[in-house]
Each structure stands twice: as C-alpha cells, then as structure tokens.
C-alpha cells in the first residue's frame, strides 16, 4: 500500500467526528466497522487495540480544533451557548477542514458557511453573523500587514482632489445590525479574569452574559476594527465615515469618496468640510493611511496573484 493511500485512509478516520461521548465512532468513514478499518492499518499492542490507538489521534484532532475555535470565537459561543457552538463547529469543520498550515485561519470560512447553513443560528441569525464578522475582523486586525503610514503633514502637502489614499490592510470596516462590540468586550473581559475568579463569580458572570445576549436589541452601528500600539480596538464611526473609508479601500479618489460618503447624509452641507477635515485628521493620527504603490508598467496582476497561490 502506498504512502499516499495510507495517509488518505488514516486522515479520513482521524478527521471523522467523535461520538457524543467524545469517543471514536464505531462505524468507519466508508460505512464499514471502524474496528476492522483500524485493524487494517494499525497494529495492536499488549495494552491497546488498533481501534484504541487510532482513537487517540481522532480525539486529539477534535480536541485541538474545537479548542482553537472556542478561543477564536468566544463571542459566538456566548451567543449560541456552549453546546450549540460545539455542535456547530463540528459540522463546520467536517465540511470545511483546515486548508492552511496555521490554525489561525481555521475560522476563515465560518461566516460564509453559516450563511449557507443558517439552521445553526436560526434563533439569533443576524446577531450571530454580526458576531462572527467582528471576531474574524479582530483576528485579521491583530496580525494584518501595516504599511508605512502617512502623517497629517504628508496629507497637507499632497492634498489634491484626485489624490488616492489607501487604508492600512489591518483596518477592517464593518456595518453591523447589533452592537456586538460591547458584548464581545464583555465576554473577553470575563475570559481574562477567569483564572482569578471563584466558581461562583464565574457562574454569575456566565448568567449575566446569557441575560445580556437575550436582551440585546438590534441597533445599527458602523465599526472600524483597527490596531494601535499593537492592540486591537473597536472604534465606532459615523455612517459617512464608513462610506468614505470603504470607498478609499476600493481605490476611489478622495474626491469621489467624499461624494459617495454624503450621498444619503443628514450632515448639513455647510458642516461637511469640517466633518471631512476632522475625520481625515483623526485617521491620519491613527496611522490608517498609506500611499498606494504606483503600478509598474506592464505588470500583469493575474500573474502576480498566481505566484502567491498555494503550490
């Protein structure tokens, strides 16, 4: 039997979901008895059967990936409840196993998958989706690329209507229907103090979070998830700011971005210049702008993206 064939067969068993009691299933990946399946590949020893030896890896796999999901999505866990969250993660990871060398990317497809499988979040559909988006933005803002930032002085020197500015890759813009930022901060704060809290305090906090989730009312917010001094922050912004930054992110000129920002705005025309100036000053201070690279003549963007694909 070839190395490739053995590895495919063993990986199928290792990545097969566990039973409710967190044991290896009795039925194998191709419908045959797992005992026979394991015995085909693994030797038993004087203490463990082939099944039990393979089971060690099966359990390790699921314990590791589920722990990673719980660490990355504590907010979604609070929204769904622990049991439902674990079941949802098992279903997600069965359909979307890791395709990256790093566990950091394990939840990269969770939002898309939840949209395709809404039964997992049926009671709190919008709230759950908002929370997933925020938690994924949190991950991306934490270790996203930072380009050399333009300062306020740079902006003054180069101010021109057709000037293009790019937004730092680590800045993530979100339009949300629930104020999940506060909820996530509360959940995370609870996690941080767990080590020092008594069981009673933990239990009270858990009950308080559950009550808070249940009571959370929809309220549209616009967020910039960003990084300052290597810590991630959730900054609430105005709808006009959101439109403006989104337009800049897609490569629009400043002039065009401003036009788009005030299309449906209630900000009086007379106040708009001051509004824009204040916003740009704030964002420049936060280091959100960088100058987009000039395109090299003859550069083929398709070839470039092909180079960075997985080999």
């Amino acid at each position, binding site marked *: 039997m070839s190395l490739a064939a053995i590895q495919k067969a063993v990986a199928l068993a*290792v990545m097969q979901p566990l039973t409710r009691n967190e044991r290896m299933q009795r039925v194998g990946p191709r419908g045959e008895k797992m005992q026979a399946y394991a015995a085909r590949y693994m030797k038993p020893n004087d203490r463990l059967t082939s099944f039990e030896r393979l089971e060690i890896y099966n359990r390790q796999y699921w314990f590791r990936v589920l722990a990673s999901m719980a660490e990355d999505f504590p907010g979604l866990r609070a929204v769904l409840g622990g049991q439902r969250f674990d079941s949802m993660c098992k279903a997600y990871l069965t359909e979307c*196993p*890791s395709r990256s060398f790093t566990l950091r990317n394990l939840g990269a497809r969770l939002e898309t998958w939840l949209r395709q499988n809404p039964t997992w979040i049926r009671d709190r559909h919008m709230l759950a989706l908002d929370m997933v988006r925020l938690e994924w933005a949190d991950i991306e803002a934490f270790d996203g690329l930072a380009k050399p930032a333009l300062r306020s002085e740079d902006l003054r020197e180069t101010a021109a209507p057709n000037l293009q500015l790019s937004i730092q890759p680590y800045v993530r813009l979100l339009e949300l229907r629930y104020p999940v930022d506060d909820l996530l901060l509360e959940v995370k704060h609870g996690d941080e103090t767990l080590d020092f809290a008594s069981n009673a305090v933990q239990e009270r906090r858990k009950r308080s979070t559950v009550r808070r989730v249940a009571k959370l009312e929809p309220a549209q917010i616009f967020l910039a998830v960003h990084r300052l001094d290597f810590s991630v922050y959730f900054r609430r912004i105005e709808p006009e700011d959101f439109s403006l930054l989104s337009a800049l992110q897609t490569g629009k000129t400043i002039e065009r971005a401003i036009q788009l920002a005030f299309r449906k705005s209630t900000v009086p025309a007379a106040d708009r210049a001051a509004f824009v100036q204040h916003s740009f000053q704030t964002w420049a201070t936060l280091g959100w702008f960088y100058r987009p690279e000039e395109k090299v003549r003859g550069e083929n963007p398709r070839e470039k993206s092909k180079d960075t694909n997985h*080999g």
Partner: protein
Amino acid sequence: MPANRFNNFTDYGIGIGLRAPHYDHILTRKPVVDWFEIISENFMIDGGRPLHILDQILEQYRVVQHGVSMYFGSAGRTDREHLRRLKDLVKRTGTPWVSDHLCWGSVDGRYTHDLLPMPYTFEAAKITAQKIREVRDFLEVPVAVENVSSYAEYHVSEMTEWEFLNEVVERADCGILLDVNNIYVSSRNHNFDPLTYINSVPADRVAQIHIAGHSKFQKYILDTHDHPVIDPVWKLYDRAIQRAGHTATLLEWDDSIPSFEEVHDEALKANRFLAETQLGVAV
C-alpha cells in the same frame, strides 16, 4: 562535535521555548538565556504584536526556529506559501538552522494540525528525504528533523523507528533534532528499549536536543509538555550527550506553563549532565 554543519557550526548551550506568558518577564527583566526557540508558524504572519515582540527579542537574544506543520512525511506537495513565509522569517531571525518533525499531517491540502506517525517504509523514507532536501534548498539553511512521540504503529512498516530516522537523514543528508522525551514516550508505548534507539542515532548528525515532560495514562503515555523532565528522560539525555558531545539543548514546556524562572531552572538542570561530559566525545 556539537558545532557541526547541521547546526551551522554554532555552539549553542541551553535554551527554552519563547512563550507568550513569559514575554513581559523577558522584555522587562532581560534574564540571561543562551537562546530561545520559537514556533515558526506563530510568527509567519504579516504584522502586529507577535512580530513586534520577536523583533525586540532578536535585539538581545539568539533565536532558533522550530516548525510544527511542514509535514516532511506527507505524500503531497510542499505548500509554497508556507515555504515563502518561512523563508521570510528565516531572513528576519537569522536562525542558524531550522527544525521540524519527522511526521505527516496533511492530505490533499487538508491539515490535521497534528504530528501523525510515519509508516516506516522505504517509499516513505524516499519521499520524506526528497521533501527535506527541497525545503533546505529553498530556505538555504540547514534542516534538522525531530523524532516524534507516537501512539500507533503501522502493519506496513518495514523497519524500526530509529532505522527509519537513519534512512531518512542519510538520504536527505540532514541533521537530527533528537527529542529524548519523545524516545522515552514512544519506547513505553511500543515496548522497545530507548537506549537501543539513542545508541543507533548517528551522533555526528545531531544538531540539537529536546527535553520535556509528559503525562502518564493507564495504558499509554502522552507527550504533553506540561510537566518537569523525569529522571529516566534525564538518563537518556545523559547518554545522548555522551555520544554527541555538548549539544544545543532546549526544554519544551507548552501547557500549564509555570513562571519563567521555573521553566528556565528546569532547563538549566541539563548543566549537571553537560558538566560531566567532555566536549566532542562520540561513542
């Protein structure tokens, strides 16, 4: 002996793993540590705090890279994105050598994020060695492969684990990161004499040694890196350095991580054995 082509002719002493709970202590107290080992994948990112911390560590300490997901033994192709990011990190850290495990863990682009044991076959040795050469040529630094702890054995195996290790490193002409705790764990799980393993390793290829603690269960032992090193593992370490000479030694402590001092003190216990061993003695 310890400074050899597999560790880039360096002469490192006792190091510990760089772990997040110790960042503040290291950066504020600046303890004397010969070198730190980092998990490469934790720093193969675009930006943010981890790289900022790493850059500060690099200003004061020597760093060696240890990977957990290259999967030399996987039958599929090497992930080019992984290699590219790893090379960027190698340039950043100036690591004298790079290590990863003699195992597999991915199939058809799907990752288990585990260190799965190899079937000890000649075909597997050939494929694994080819991949190690490919990685070394791309990274342009020496590569050392680490023996893993295992809990299962395959019917198709054609040789012992140590014979397989020898077959791979000879074919790849690479170094060995000898994990004496892993040898102990596997010897208990598979009923072999760990000294036979240690005595069979080509001493002149040992670039680095790992020591660690583990957890005992009723029917098997798990490599958990959450306890101090036990005496039988120190005895194996003693034998390993008798054969290989003073070798860069690293204590792994990855779970239930105690204070920096406790981890460092545990690592420095290796000095007891190093002091008794003459430099460059291979047996």
